């Protein structure tokens, strides 16, 4: 049922057209706001399935789920961005993204209300984010872009998914000294 992964609808011909000055984004909705992530970072989309809670984690870290044998953490973006929480419904989607975490690449999920569109954007049309106080740290934002008279907030997946509790700790496994 909903555990089946839906392939990302990146139409490849469009992708092929994306010239050096352009980049493709997948956009999604959170409380009627539209956000975009670099489509090359998106591995797949999944319907919402219950996750396993991990002790002692902030509330935006919903838990871990089984992605074909790999255990991946899942983040509720509404919660992370301080938006009002809603019940998960049939359109609730987990976007599985690849995150560059320095030495390793990690696979993680983000819970969003729904997936919207894929856009091919001119890089020069992307405006820097204004420094306004909000729950969304300015580091997480690559820029803003207007599309079809809507503002889309483009997110920096690496900044977002390596922040706070998700940071990779570089401590050694158990501090075992070698003799």
């Amino acid at each position, binding site marked *: 049922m909903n*555990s089946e992964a839906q392939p990302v609808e990146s139409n490849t011909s469009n992708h092929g057209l994306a010239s050096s000055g352009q980049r493709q984004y997948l956009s999604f909705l959170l409380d009627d706001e539209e956000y975009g992530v670099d489509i090359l970072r998106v591995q797949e989309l999944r319907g919402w399935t219950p996750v396993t809670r991990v002790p002692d984690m902030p509330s935006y870290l919903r838990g*871990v789920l089984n992605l074909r044998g*790999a*255990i991946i953490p899942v983040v509720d973006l509404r919660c992370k961005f301080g938006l009002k929480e809603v019940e998960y419904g049939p359109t609730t989607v987990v976007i599985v993204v690849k995150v560059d975490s320095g030495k390793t690449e990690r696979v*993680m999920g983000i819970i969003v209300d729904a997936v919207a569109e894929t856009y091919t954007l001119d890089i020069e049309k992307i405006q820097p984010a204004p420094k306004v106080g909000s729950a969304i740290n300015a580091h997480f934002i690559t820029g803003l872009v207007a599309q079809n008279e809507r503002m889309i907030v483009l997110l920096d997946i690496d900044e977002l998914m390596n922040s706070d509790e998700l940071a*990779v700790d570089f*401590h050694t496994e158990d501090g075992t000294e070698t*003799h």
Partner: protein
Amino acid sequence: MSVDLSQFVAAFLEESYEGLDIMESSLLELDSTDVETINSIFRAAHSIKGGAGTFGLDEVANFTHIVETILDALRSDEMETSPDLVNLLLESVDCIRALLAASQGGDAADPSVIEDVHDRLKAVMGQNSAAATDTAASSATETQEKVWEIQFIPNANMLAQGHRPEAMFSALSELGVIETKLLTSQVPPLTNLNPEECYLSWALHLRSSHSLEEIEEIFEWVVDDCDLSIKPLQESVSAGTREMAISFKPDPELLHTGNDPYFIFDALGQLGELTTTLDASKLPKFSELDPEKLFLSWQLKLRTETPDAEVKELFEWVEASAELEFKTQGSEPTAQPARAAQAPTPTAATAAAESASGPSETAPKAPSAASTTKAKSTNTETSSIRVETNKIDALINRVGELVITQAMLGQVGAELADDERVGALAERLQEGLGQLERNTRDLQQDVMRVRMLPISFVFNRFPRLVHDVSSKLGKKVELKLSGEQTEVDKTVMEKLGDPMVHLVRNSLDHGLEAPDERRAQGKSETGTLLLKAYHQGGNVIIEIIDDGRGLNTEKIRSKALSSGLITEEQNLSDDEVHDLIFQPGFSTADQVSDLSGRGVGMDVVRRNIESLGGNVSVKSRAGVGATITVSLPLTLAIMDGQLVRLGGDTYIIPLVSIVETIQASDKTMSAIGGERRLLHYRDEYIALIDLKTLFNLPPVEGVGSNLVAIVEHSGSKLALKVDELLGQQQVVIKSLEVNFKRVEGLSGATILGDGSVALILDIAGIDKRSHNQQILADEIFSSLSTH
């Protein structure tokens, strides 16, 4: 012509490291009369030098060249082996290893060490060169013309390796007059012929005054890619012409083994005059004839000069599936010594090296050579392939998925069976699912076994270690290994190495006594250290047994008293006292030696072994010796788990750490200052941990249960409060760290039958976590009360 060599470098390195291992192990068992061992060391050094030269690793090549020169002197008896020389060669093995590592961007080799060893090697060579001139002079007089018989059977891939036989023959012709005979028996039918492979072989006669070494030099680059034998012709001629009667009764299944009698006859025909008589009496009626079976047998008569051994060699591949009988008619008066020398080493070029030193000498040596070749072949017979471990891990993951899918299907099947509407169909489904379950379990076990390696991979480093350490300590030690073929998971193996080294060093350093002390106690001067491995249940047990002085119970007790580990009143048994050596910060060594007693002691060993899910214990008898027993799980990828419910979530406690699960009564649970509570359990008070509080899980309504799981780690017990015990099952351990991070108190996660994730508890982490939380709570409490 430029070829990108980089792709071969990895293979070269791997081979070189293997070669170094061979050199090391052979050097350790080296004794001067053992030509075969010296040869194998020489060959390993030789191919490292050659490879290093090809890949432009001049430093390695030059260094190895010196080692090779010394080894060459050893094998040609120009130099005597001595313990000092063996040590020096062992050191140079280390140097080559360091140089190789450095060439691949590893830590730079310490130039002063390299230079030191280099100079000492040079010095050894210098001593020898004086002696060498004598032998050179004497060997010069021997240079009369001889006829050499050269059998050259290249491997199929020789051409692909860039070797050209005709170039070698023209080089040979410069040494003397050659006669070549081309053997084409191995050429397949044209349809099967691969033009890139070489199917030809040659028999050459070379009339030359040059020495064996000079002839061998021409084949230097191909020795590894061919079967080569070079020997003076006279010896084989002396075998004399005679008639051999061979009775060959093959098994009906012979054709299935891929052998064809006609190839054998063809080859026999080339050795001499062959007459065959076919016996078709066993042939069944045509209607019953199975075309895939062989019903024929043959009586062969061969007139040949070839020694028996070579004739028999042709039947080598069919020996197991045929009745064979050889009868030699006619005499072969002078052949005895020559055949003895040739029989044990039919293919290797080393046969030539032996026979070169004269038949009178080779005869007595032959038996020892035969036994070594035999011992080797049993080692190399297990054919294997190299596979990257991540491919195996991917396979294991895939099978893990399959197990989960199968479990899911099993659940659906069970539900269906309860549904009356489906009826008989459901039964058949159940049956099929049952079969699927068995097959997946078997598959999983088989795949797990792929990751298993014999423990000899760990044991193999100890002969060297014991050699080095005991000579440094001035002790005489005999190392015995047993159960080297016991298989362990590769990951376990990798993590086992360091603790084992520590334990062995400890036994050498503290356990075994110096020779005079041993003599004084009426023991033999040489101490014994036995490393023993075997399987027991789902565990592999490794014992390190020494016959030394044993643990000093009194000293341990007083040390433990002074450091406050135990109190005067505690009445501990000897075993309990001995167990104290695994406590942190415990070292009784009178003086800190170079080898052990650097403050990192047995506690680290215990911690490392427990982190692998195993345990370690010691048994000792004063004056008789000590046995350290390490018990480890066969694999880290799977473990037996107890599923427990905490609130709405399922967690897994490793079954190995559970002592028992009990229903505690309120009376036995006592609160002491604040949150931390104690459980009165069998005469001791142990910390009682409410996992839900510890993990900050939301409280659930309803009556809490008093179910408690008593768990043990590092010798101390904990009581974990859980809501429900769910069942036990084997779980595949998955890392949380790969895509997430380490969480204190959890050792990983697994996927349950329904596809959901369950977290695995880490007892040591929980203990640590509860301590930290307690400290935090105390701080908050005290800061509240002071303000």
